[in-house]
């Protein structure tokens, strides 16, 4: 983990780590459920991504601020409590602010609680670092997730409906399958392969890790 020497690790590096090296969806293959469920159009993907960024940053902030007061043996229940508290807040705010999007993604917003990635960052990073790096780590991991969601939902909406954010851009018969549930799996499979290929080619000299 990159938590060893926090002075040397620049904040930019933390963000870059979350977006590329440990991209939640494409590299670690965690928290996949919403990645497919809500990405049949860009708007849903956008709000889901925002919700995750907010929860991840706030959880990291809260836990790193409280880390000296949490007894190690009961840390996991406390982390869960903090996460579900923030998820509840985000859930209620989304319900009030964007009701039409909430109708589609509400269930998945509530299920952010069960995201392995958020708990993992709280455990691996925020509980060992001070507030500022933890916030940047949260921004990085959240943004990585956000970007992945945006790429998947952009791809699915353009190819599946010929639209971007509900505005038609392609005047051809779209490939309807991509907005069907099954298409979500195809889209993620193809994009994940593309990400693996790109990563292997440009960002690392060695082979694949998995």
């Amino acid at each position, binding site marked *: 983990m990159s938590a060893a020497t926090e002075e040397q690790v620049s904040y930019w590096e933390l963000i870059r780590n979350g977006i590329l090296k440990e991209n939640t969806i494409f590299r670690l293959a965690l928290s996949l*459920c919403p990645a497919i469920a809500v990405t049949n159009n860009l708007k849903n993907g956008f709000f889901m991504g925002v919700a995750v960024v907010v929860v991840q940053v706030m959880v990291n902030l809260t836990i790193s601020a409280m880390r000296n007061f949490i007894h190690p043996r009961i840390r996991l229940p406390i982390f869960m409590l903090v996460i579900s508290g923030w998820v509840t807040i985000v859930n209620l705010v989304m319900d009030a602010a964007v009701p039409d999007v909430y109708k589609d993604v509400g*269930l998945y917003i509530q*299920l952010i609680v069960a995201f392995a990635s958020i708990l993992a960052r709280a455990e691996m990073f925020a509980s060992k670092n001070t507030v500022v790096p933890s916030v940047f780590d949260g921004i990085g991991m959240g943004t990585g997730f956000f970007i992945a969601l945006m790429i998947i939902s952009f791809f699915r909406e353009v190819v599946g409906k010929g639209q971007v954010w509900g505005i038609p851009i392609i005047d051809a018969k779209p490939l309807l*399958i991509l907005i069907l*549930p099954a298409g979500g799996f195809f889209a993620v499979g193809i994009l994940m392969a593309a990400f693996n290929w790109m990563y292997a080619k440009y960002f690392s000299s060695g082979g694949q890790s998995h």
Partner: protein
Amino acid sequence: MDFGKLFELVVSSSLVNNYVFTMFLGLCIFFGVTKKMETAIGMSITFTTVMMISAALSWIVYKFIMVPLNIEFLLIIVFIGIVAGLVQGSDTVMRKVTPDLYNKLGIYLALISTNCIILAVPLQSVGNKYNFIETIAFAFGSGLGFSLAMIIMASIREKLELADVPVPFRGLPMAFVITGLIALAFTGFSGLITL
């Protein structure tokens, strides 16, 4: 009790609205344990059992504690607490009472708390205002559907080991494409029952 309704509920939650193929929940576990048939079956048994108990428990807590106290907005916190507590509790009990069973299934028990289906079932049964029996039927159907998905997937992936897959697609990406194909087949169930 209307058994026709219950039967519909089981069929709809296991086939028509299969959690893995139409709602995309529980994918982490789904891809994690389906590399071998044996683990897939172990997970299916453990998962279905725990899900029925946790759904029943959540329903009771919601109906008799949260509604009278007007604290429905704490839904998420309470339900995750119930699931985590239940998993931890049954882990401890199983280890003491049936060590044999624990050796076989204990490892899956630990994984369950990271599964979103286990949380989605109580949330949805509260959202759809199911009664107690319906909640259990719904949980059973969802568990059945998840087991079915895992067993199909495991049998395909065991064969896939021998296939020559293009390098960037090796591992997870290919598993995703296959899941897409199965999901496509499952869309065939969509007209079966309309609740």
